[in-house]
């Protein structure tokens, strides 16, 4: 299996404060990986560094064999990209924008997902409920044909039916060799779709484990395992 994401000796400081220290991480192609950690642990920062949106880190990040920022941007679809739009913009305009800006954006795929998720395109961004906004983010992000999808907390504050629909669309529309990195601090809902979990703690990657290994080796749920790490009850390997 080939490595889609390779991070070596990554260090990142902001305003003289160390945010991430000595991060080393390898993610194989095709994996769905949960990036877990407390609020403020550095999950979003790590995603922004991978996407090339945040700059100034030392170390090396390679994505699908690319290490230049423009090249990386063409192989990564990042959920944060929707944040740049004005709130009175209409959804159909945003979709046109994606079609114009990203050559890999598939309108056909988007329309399939929009039908499945029941996205109302006549509305303006500001009129969307939290759940509808997350559906739109997922629809737009996954409709690009890239090697990596970065989904930053797509389940924050949404109801369980919407969450289930979003999770189903991730399973349904993820291509076999694409990597999905999804961050969350609320694990149990997505545990069943994860191949691996990566836990950020104390400004670095505390551990990276296969989800099935956590279940078979420790007879623990992912949530339980994650909590035990944050509560300091270390489990010996």
């Amino acid at each position, binding site marked *: 299996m080939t490595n889609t994401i390779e991070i070596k000796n990554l260090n990142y400081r902001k305003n003289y404060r160390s945010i991430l220290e000595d991060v080393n991480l390898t993610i194989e192609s095709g994996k769905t990986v949960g990036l877990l950690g407390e609020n403020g642990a550095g999950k979003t920062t790590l995603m922004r560094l991978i996407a090339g949106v945040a700059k100034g880190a030392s170390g090396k990040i390679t994505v699908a064999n690319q290490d230049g920022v423009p090249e990386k941007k063409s192989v990564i679809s990042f959920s944060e990209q929707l944040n740049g739009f004005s709130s009175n913009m209409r959804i159909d305009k945003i979709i046109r924008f994606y079609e114009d800006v990203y050559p890999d954006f598939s309108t056909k795929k988007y329309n399939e997902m929009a039908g499945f998720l029941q996205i109302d395109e006549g509305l303006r961004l500001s009129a969307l409920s939290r759940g509808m906004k997350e559906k739109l983010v997922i629809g737009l992000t996954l409709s690009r044909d890239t090697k990596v999808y970065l989904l930053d907390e797509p389940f924050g504050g949404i109801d369980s039916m919407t969450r289930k629909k979003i999770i189903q669309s991730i*399973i349904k529309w993820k291509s076999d060799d694409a990597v999905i990195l999804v961050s969350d601090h609320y694990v149990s809902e997505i545990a069943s779709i994860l191949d691996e979990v990566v836990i950020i703690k104390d400004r670095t990657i505390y551990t990276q484990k296969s989800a099935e290994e956590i279940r078979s080796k420790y007879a623990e749920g992912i949530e339980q395992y994650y909590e035990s790490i944050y509560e300091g009850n270390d489990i010996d390997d």
Partner: protein
Amino acid sequence: MKFDDKIPIYYQIKNYIYRQIIVGELAPGDKLPAVRQLAVNLTVNVNTVQRALGELISEKIIEPQRGKGNFVTEDQGTIEKLKKLLITQQLQELYENLHQLNVTDTEIVSYLQDYIAKRKQVQ
């Protein structure tokens, strides 16, 4: 279906398919849904479904046909054996639990008979 997050998911998927075959939801020779469809139905990862199906194939419970998909075995002997295995697992659990309560073998038999008789009355 709801998974127990403490037990490997591929194992639970296998059990789910075993049960479908035994109760006849999946008849001998039936085609299983495509891998991705199964993953969506069960809300699990495609790789996990693949692992479960891989084991079912090596156990000869399902048979892959190139370019066509996976089919439930038509070998009645294999299905019978599977059914026996699952029944034995249930019995073993019951037997061990009752033994832990210091119930003897003869008592287990009579308790079971009483229980079945009572259940019949309720129905």
